[in-house]
């Protein structure tokens, strides 16, 4: 479905000294700086997969998606989507794809949502029957009924995003790229949107590539994640595997009668870390569950303190990813130190 081989994108930036003088200088004597946004990545995605594409700000996610949609031409490397090279056959490729780009609207600003959809119907040449069925279904799943008559510019962010999503799936594309579809939304809308994406994937086998900074999106929608950092891929694999591989960290929250007096039991020293906890009566302990058993931590704590309540937290993808980023950063720093010495 989607194959990416040794894909690279470099941006050329005009380098400029600060101030007016620098600006004048760069007018006559341009110096370019090359920004390696994507540094040779590889992956393949099969029809019907739901892939979370995650990474910190500036990691290269949007750049990759723009190359997959054909908006950007890669500096080098290969991309094919559905057998087409997107940037060479942009319009042909466009028939098979749908996209949502963060807070930028895809709909027509001044005209009512229903009219917008009608124009999209003509643009994508959707058969009338199919169009009616699709609209009816979307209206129900996304609660669009009351929004259809309103011009897009009068919609709230959450309402707009629901309409956007419907627009991206309207022509039943084979692949949908979602670049931060839940940014700035409240929980209720997020839940609705996640449910919708999942349903479309199951019903039509739509391939979904999703970027987000909300790990809950990933947990609920994706079977697989690709983590990118600094333009290179750090991890590519199933969601369950990454939890198994990196998710040995456990966190237990204890409610204590007297937090002031707390001191880590000596038996746990060196193996358990005390995490900061804002709440006045609670304490959080983090440990590697391969090295120490949860039951051991709990019994040690019970024997020393009066425990009101306790709660074992699941290994969250969030903490795993954070760990991975941190490891990467430490690695880089390590390299730097080596390079300097």
């Amino acid at each position: 479905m989607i194959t990416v081989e040794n894909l690279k994108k470099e941006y050329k930036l005009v380098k400029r000294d600060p101030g007016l003088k620098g600006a004048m200088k760069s007018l006559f004597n341009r110096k370019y700086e090359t920004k390696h946004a994507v540094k040779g990545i590889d992956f393949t995605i099969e029809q019907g997969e739901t892939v979370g594409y995650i990474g910190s700000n500036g990691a290269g996610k949007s750049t990759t998606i723009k190359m997959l949609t054909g908006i950007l031409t890669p500096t080098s490397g290969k991309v094919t989507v559905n057998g087409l090279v997107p940037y060479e056959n942009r319009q042909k490729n466009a028939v098979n794809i749908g996209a949502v780009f963060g807070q930028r609207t895809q709909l027509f600003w001044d005209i009512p949502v229903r009219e917008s959809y009608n124009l999209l119907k003509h643009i994508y040449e959707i058969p009338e029957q199919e169009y009616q069925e699709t609209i009816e279904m979307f209206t129900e799943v996304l609660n669009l009924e009351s929004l259809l008559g309103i011009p897009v510019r009068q919609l709230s962010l959450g309402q707009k995003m629901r309409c956007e999503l419907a627009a991206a799936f309207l022509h039943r594309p084979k692949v949908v790229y979602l670049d931060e579809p839940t940014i700035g939304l409240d929980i209720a809308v997020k839940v609705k949107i996640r449910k919708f994406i999942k349903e479309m994937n199951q019903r039509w086998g739509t391939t979904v590539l999703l970027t987000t900074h909300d790990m809950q999106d990933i947990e609920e929608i994706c079977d697989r994640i690709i983590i990118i950092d600094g333009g290179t891929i750090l991890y590519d694999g199933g969601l369950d595997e990454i939890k198994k591989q990196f998710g040995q960290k456990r966190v237990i929250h204890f409610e204590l009668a007297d937090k002031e007096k707390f001191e880590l039991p000596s038996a746990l020293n060196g193996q358990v870390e005390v995490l900061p906890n804002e709440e006045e009566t609670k304490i959080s302990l983090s440990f590697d569950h391969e090295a120490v058993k949860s039951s051991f931590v709990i019994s040690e704590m019970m024997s020393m303190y009066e425990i009101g309540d306790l709660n074992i937290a699941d290994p969250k993808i969030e903490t795993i990813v954070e760990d991975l980023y941190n490891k990467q950063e430490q690695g880089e720093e390590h390299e730097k130190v080596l390079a300097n010495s």
Partner: protein
Amino acid sequence: MRRYTRLYWEFAKSHMKVMMEYRIDFLIGVASVMLEQFASIFFVKVVFDHIEQINGWSFYEILFIYGIAATGRSIHQIFFDNLWTLGWQYIRPGKLDRLLIRPVNPLFHVVADRLHQDGFGQLIIGLIILGTAIPQLDLVWGAAEIAMLVIMIISSGLIFVAINLFFATFSFWMIDSLPIVWAVFNLSDFARYPLTIYHKGIRMFLTWIIPYGFTAFYPAAYFIDKSGYKEFALWTPVAAIVCCVLAYAFWNRGLKAFASTGS
């Protein structure tokens, strides 16, 4: 081609619905353009009250040139007005991205995104001026002449479009080329008078470099024997096609540059 015609019609229907919803804005837009045009014709009229001819051109002949310019410009203004907004509305805010992932020609999409009400004022004025000027000219009008006038007006419109497209395309490399597009567009005012009243250099410039001469003076000269440009005027449709081809090729280059820089 058929598909694009149908698609354009669908876009236009939506725009017209919006226009009808904001009827007051529509009327004010049309009226203000008409007022503006009347003011500049009034100015010409005042000049002619004092002298009979300018360089051998009578008032009604100049009015005729004016009328062709106004009608040609209205084609541009009604259907292609969105070219003005290419930089700040499409390229900078990333709206062009969304057009690039649709299965239509992006230039078509930009153009079809707007139908400009003020252009209708321009069209009405243009037709009124032509209707006033033509009976006063010493001409016989047959079907052939009318067909020729229509061809000339369409060519005039296309040249306005091509020149605007060409300079708007610079927005792919600059933050916004709007000031340049404006500056160039203002030159078209010169072309509403007989080019023969100008210095040779200006005449050459408006014929071969920025060919606004073909938007009014040359088309009009076809119908006015004494101009001495009757034959040269026949090149007008050719000039229009050449300009469109060049501008479109340049636009494609701009798109290509956009695809490699992403901004």
